[in-house]
């Protein structure tokens, strides 16, 4: 779960990391109020969770309260990658001597947390790693001892600091690790960490992603997620509430399947045959008819969908149950769009019988079914 920049900064400040003075606003009046308490120049930053906010024009600068108001108005009327800007953060702009990167994330290959530091801040760290790997310093963190003050100082030294700046950087980095552990983050990064002309360090931007699977330990965020106080679309929210894995795509073939790998492969196969999937939706193992109804509902709520492909490989799940579930769901949701179903596995024959009786195509081969749904989607599109 991503949280907003202003939330991340509030957390960092709580852990003693210096952040720019600022405030959150949802309308221009609030902007005026906040801006008048700050010392210009100011940074006016759209609070959106999508990546590449800066490049999309989501960060503006202002030298006065009135300029700040104008910038804020502009941002509040803007969409960034399709997401409307609901709130903005106004803060004092830092006079930057150097921009650094500090982050704690997961090293999958080493089954470990990893601390990352770089003297190249302000860019995505993956890009820095690709272009100048020698400028990215990594240190694996073993849970037994964690990332301690001396590890943090060792990192600070490796990016070229010494003396009191080294200890300050060390404290910031150590605090970042504590944030990571306390909030169960997948990623916590300060990027850039601004080094000012008087040698101080200020978190100019910050990003935190909380491990979705640990949200049971962070109920305030779990609650927020379920209450939709985030940037989720109604479909995404509905999916989360029904424990469905759902991702919106840009095509016209709705896809539902059981198992993440199978659904991904289904999308790939549709694409291979020239079709365009409208979504990823995994109902998981042993889905109930309720769950399948919810899945159909979510997928079909996209007006672009011209045809639906349900790909079920019944292993432990029985095909007859799935078929009944689909029928129930179909009736409840009132599906009128063409459906192609691929259904194999346990009790396959009974499942097929149930579905063919009501005139639904049932196929055995995933490739054949994919070709069929692609063809239908094209015909429907041409109507």
């Amino acid at each position, binding site marked *: 779960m991503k949280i907003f920049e202003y939330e991340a900064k509030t957390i960092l400040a709580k852990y003693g990391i210096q952040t720019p003075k600022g405030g959150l606003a949802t309308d221009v009046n609030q902007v005026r109020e906040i801006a008048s308490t700050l010392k210009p120049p100011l940074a006016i930053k759209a609070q959106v969770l999508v990546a590449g906010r800066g490049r999309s024009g989501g960060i503006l600068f202002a030298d006065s309260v009135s300029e700040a108001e104008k910038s804020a108005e502009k941002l509040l009327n803007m969409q960034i990658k399709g997401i409307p800007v609901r709130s903005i953060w106004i803060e004092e702009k830092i006079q930057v001597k150097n921009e650094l990167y500090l982050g704690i994330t997961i090293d999958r290959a080493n089954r470990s947390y990893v601390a990352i530091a770089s003297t190249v801040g302000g860019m995505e760290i993956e890009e820095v790693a690709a272009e100048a790997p020698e400028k990215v310093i990594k240190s694996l963190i073993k849970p037994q001892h964690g990332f301690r003050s001396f590890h943090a100082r060792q990192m600070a030294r490796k990016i070229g600091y010494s003396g009191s700046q080294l200890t300050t950087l060390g404290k910031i980095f150590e605090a970042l690790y504590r944030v990571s552990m306390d909030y169960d983050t997948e990623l916590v990064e300060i990027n850039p960490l601004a080094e000012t002309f008087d040698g101080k360090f200020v978190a100019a931007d910050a990003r935190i992603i909380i491990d979705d699977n640990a949200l049971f330990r962070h109920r305030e965020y779990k609650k927020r997620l379920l209450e939709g106080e985030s940037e989720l679309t109604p479909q995404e929210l509905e999916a989360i509430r029904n424990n469905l894995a759902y991702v919106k795509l840009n095509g016209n073939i709705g896809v539902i399947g059981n198992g993440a790998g199978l659904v991904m492969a289904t999308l790939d196969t549709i694409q*291979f045959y020239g079709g365009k999937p409208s979504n990823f939706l995994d109902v998981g193992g042993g889905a109930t008819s309720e769950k399948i109804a919810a899945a159909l509902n979510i997928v079909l709520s996209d007006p672009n969908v011209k045809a639906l492909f349900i790909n079920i490989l019944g292993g432990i799940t029985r095909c007859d149950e799935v078929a009944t579930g689909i029928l129930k769901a179909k009736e409840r949701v009132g599906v009128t769009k063409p459906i192609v179903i691929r259904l194999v596995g346990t009790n396959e024959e009974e499942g097929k019988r149930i579905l063919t009786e009501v005139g639904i195509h049932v196929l055995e081969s995933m490739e054949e079914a994919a070709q069929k749904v692609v063809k239908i989607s094209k015909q429907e599109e041409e109507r």
Partner: protein
Amino acid sequence: MGIIIDKNTHAIVQGITGTQGRFHTKLMLEYGTKIVAGVTPGKGGMQIHGVPVYDTVEAALEKHPANASIIFVPAIFAAEAALEALENGIKTIIIITEHIPIKDAVNVMTYAEQVNAVIIGPNTPGIITSEESKLGIMPAHIFMPGSIGMVSRSGTLTYEIAAGLTRKQLGQSTCLGLGGDPITGLNFIDVLKMFRKDPQTKAVVLIGEIGGNLEELTAEYIIKEKYPKPVVAFIAGRSAPPGKRMGHAGAIIMGKAGTAESKIKALRSAGVNVAEKPSDVAKSLARIIDI
């Protein structure tokens, strides 16, 4: 033969009294797996399909020596269950449970490494060595004994491909899922090493997906070690957008890292035959095995 489990594997089931644990214990017993005891704290003294249940792993092992555990415990307690098994000396642990927090999984893996234990999963369908033992939730009937080793990051996609092999009479030695989480125990390289040593295994099927760089590292390993057995791969997620989690917690492209293209390119440069569609895996394999 096959790897990791065989006829001599004696397993306990942690979380045996839950719906999943109960159901799959039955299926595993039917398959012939030696399930010697179950563990659910507070439920000691029960019997599940004839298997005695204990409150603790320690208590179970006192009565029933076992060398493996399969874990169906809910995500909140699953890492604890794995640590309990590890501390009580079990060296092969299959964690079926999905949605275990990363922090907890890292703890388990670090400890497992220290005591040289094998962890499969979390979020895995488990492992099956055909006609010897099954510690997992995969439908047994799609598998047949043979010489293909399978290793995968996905469940149903593995069944899809395994069923395809079986239809073509390409039987399997051992088939196992690494698990769909970002932090898992065994990885592709670990399993490739095991298949290398297994005389029954003649070729390997590797089923990867977007996210992380395990497939790329595996390609490096294959090149460096001049891996002696043919490998056929399928990588799911060519059509996945960046920044979105595709069902599995681990299936996510971060920035430009973890794409299917990168993995396919790396594997092909290592001489691995990467299939375009799931059904192509069996076809490629049939060609290779014929050679």
